[in-house]
């Protein structure tokens, strides 16, 4: 038997209350870890952005188009290695409006110069380059819809109305996490031919590749200067900034989430503090007895802090113990498969586990600080006079 052992045993005094408190701490930590994982995996998604790619879009909004010839103007600039363009197609499987996936028109010829991390078997790639109605789809997306090479797929357009037929020519994977594997890419020429006149020769955004990341910033300025005096001005930014602006709405949500996680921690602290304070109040007489026997104020506060530490850490461990499999095997896979672009890697980070456990401990100590101080300040004879 030792002092720490007694502190731990004291948590059994009111087992029901301890179980409730541990559960409270565990749930708070689980919620905290979930939110943290959303935050850090989103940040990771942005971190994965390629540093040698820059994106150009309409100055006003992402929704408005740029003239197709801007691509050639950019290609003519010094220090541009390659440029390709993209149009958000915004179509869905007929009758399946709720099953969102990104479908984007691009120029197959320059596409692979830009996205060198996208891998398609050579024969499939060659096929796509020849096939006007061809499409390549990410392996995650192919798996989701059960598509195989050679399948015919019809999509129903909204920005570009009508039914559009495609051949699945290839299934791509990626060697880096900078692109998601659940996008449907198809030939822009197919779109351009069939689009209404006002939508012809228009592109959504242009991605430019520079030989090395150091030149990216300079080129961003030069591209925008180039179009400064044209009818339509551009806004050029790093791929990272593009990803961030894409997620502008979400990022506001994430800020709210991190605030919620702080609130959750505060609630956890209050629950714990209340449990500890109740215990101290009930045991005032007992602390008097301990002090009479010769225990010092520091021992009494150590009992209180020890008990809080145990409850906090135990609750934290339970929370982590639930969060780990839940996120890494359940939620995480779902997020990675369905929101690759935003959350390419949705797993509990070791650092977040450390933070969660560290906070469990720290907040437990903070929550117990006042009760511990009060317990240590008790006057022996007063405490002894206090009944149960």
């Amino acid at each position, binding site marked *: *038997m*030792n*002092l720490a052992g*007694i502190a731990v*045993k*004291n948590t*059994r*005094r009111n087992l029901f209350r301890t179980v409730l408190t541990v559960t409270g701490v565990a749930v708070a930590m689980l919620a905290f870890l979930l939110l943290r994982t959303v935050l850090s995996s989103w940040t990771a998604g942005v971190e994965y952005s390629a540093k040698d790619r820059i994106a150009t879009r309409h100055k006003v909004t992402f929704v408005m188009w740029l003239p197709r010839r801007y691509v050639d103007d950019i290609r003519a600039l010094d220090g541009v290695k390659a440029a390709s363009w993209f149009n958000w197609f915004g179509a869905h499987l007929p009758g399946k409006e709720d099953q969102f996936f990104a479908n984007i028109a691009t120029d197959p010829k320059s596409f692979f110069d830009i996205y060198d991390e996208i891998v398609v078997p050579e024969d499939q790639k060659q096929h796509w380059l020849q096939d006007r109605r061809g499409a390549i789809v990410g392996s995650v997306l192919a798996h989701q819809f059960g598509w195989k090479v050679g399948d015919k797929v019809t999509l129903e357009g909204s920005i570009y109305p009508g039914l559009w037929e495609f051949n699945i020519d290839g299934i791509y994977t990626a060697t880096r996490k900078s692109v998601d594997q659940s996008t449907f890419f198809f030939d822009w020429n197919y779109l351009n031919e069939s689009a209404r006149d006002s939508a012809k020769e228009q592109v959504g955004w242009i991605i430019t590749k520079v030989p090395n990341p150091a030149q990216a910033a300079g080129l961003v300025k030069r591209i925008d200067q180039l179009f400064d005096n044209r009818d339509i001005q551009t806004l050029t930014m790093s791929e990272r900034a593009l990803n961030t602006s894409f997620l502008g709405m979400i990022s506001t949500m994430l800020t709210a989430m991190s605030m919620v996680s702080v609130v959750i921690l505060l609630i956890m602290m209050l629950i714990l503090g209340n449990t500890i304070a109740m215990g101290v109040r009930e045991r005032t*007489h*007992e602390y008097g*007895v*301990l*002090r*009479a*026997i*010769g*225990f*010092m104020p520091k021992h009494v506060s150590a009992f209180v802090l020890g008990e809080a530490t145990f409850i906090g850490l135990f609750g934290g461990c339970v929370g982590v113990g639930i969060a780990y499999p839940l996120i890494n095997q359940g939620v995480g896979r779902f997020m990675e498969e369905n929101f690759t672009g935003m959350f390419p890697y949705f797993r509990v980070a070791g650092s977040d586990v450390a933070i969660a456990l560290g906070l469990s401990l720290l907040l437990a100590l903070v929550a117990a600080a006042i009760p511990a101080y009060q317990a240590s300040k008790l006057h*022996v*004879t007063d405490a*002894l006079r206090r009944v149960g």
Partner: protein
Amino acid sequence: MSDASTTPTSTAANTAANTAVKSGGAAAATLIRLSQVGKTYYRGKEAVEVLKNLDLEMPDGAFEALMGPSGSGKSTLLNLIAGLDNVTSGSIQISGVDLSRMSEGERAKWRSQNVGFIFQTYNLMPVLTAAENVELPLLLTSLPSAERKKRALTALRVVGLEERASHRPDQLSGGQQQRVAIARAIVTDPKIIVADEPTGDLDRASADQILELLVKLNKELGKTIVMVTHDPAAAERASIVRRLDKGQLT
């Protein structure tokens, strides 16, 4: 605790001391000496003078009973003797050590080495076994764990509860709990045992057992016992009975 099972006749010194106390105590040295002790409590601005100019000497090896009406200051006096509280005026000397000059921390250390406590409501920790409760005061010493356990069991043997060592308080009767508390009080082998109404919560039979035990501690182990009680039958077991009324010894 090693001499716990020895009989008084086997220790010449003990026998001599006990005889001295029984025969009037002229030869017994004074263990506890209170001179002009005053104790005043303050409730806000209102002062309550509980003890006033109290002089008192208790001989080594005595079994003292303190009686008196409720509110007369018995517990207050006992707490001062036990070093739980400090005097407002005057001084308390125990074995020549002046308690009234000690800091709170020094008194805590002194208590842990010199005083065993028995309370009316036993005050055992419910999550600990009888043996662990008895061992509790030894956690403040540097004794190794095995030695602490051994001493706790010896103390439990003295109170006749060795076979209940692994029981928790809620598995014991009131009388048994009080005996565990007595084992806890003697485990550090203190000179003095203070008991505030040790039989107050017990039926007659259990109370008698406890008193028997206190007499045994006094006679066989030479403990000086100061006991506050309302119970005349309890006071009868003591070698000296003092009465306190309105803060004065009568």
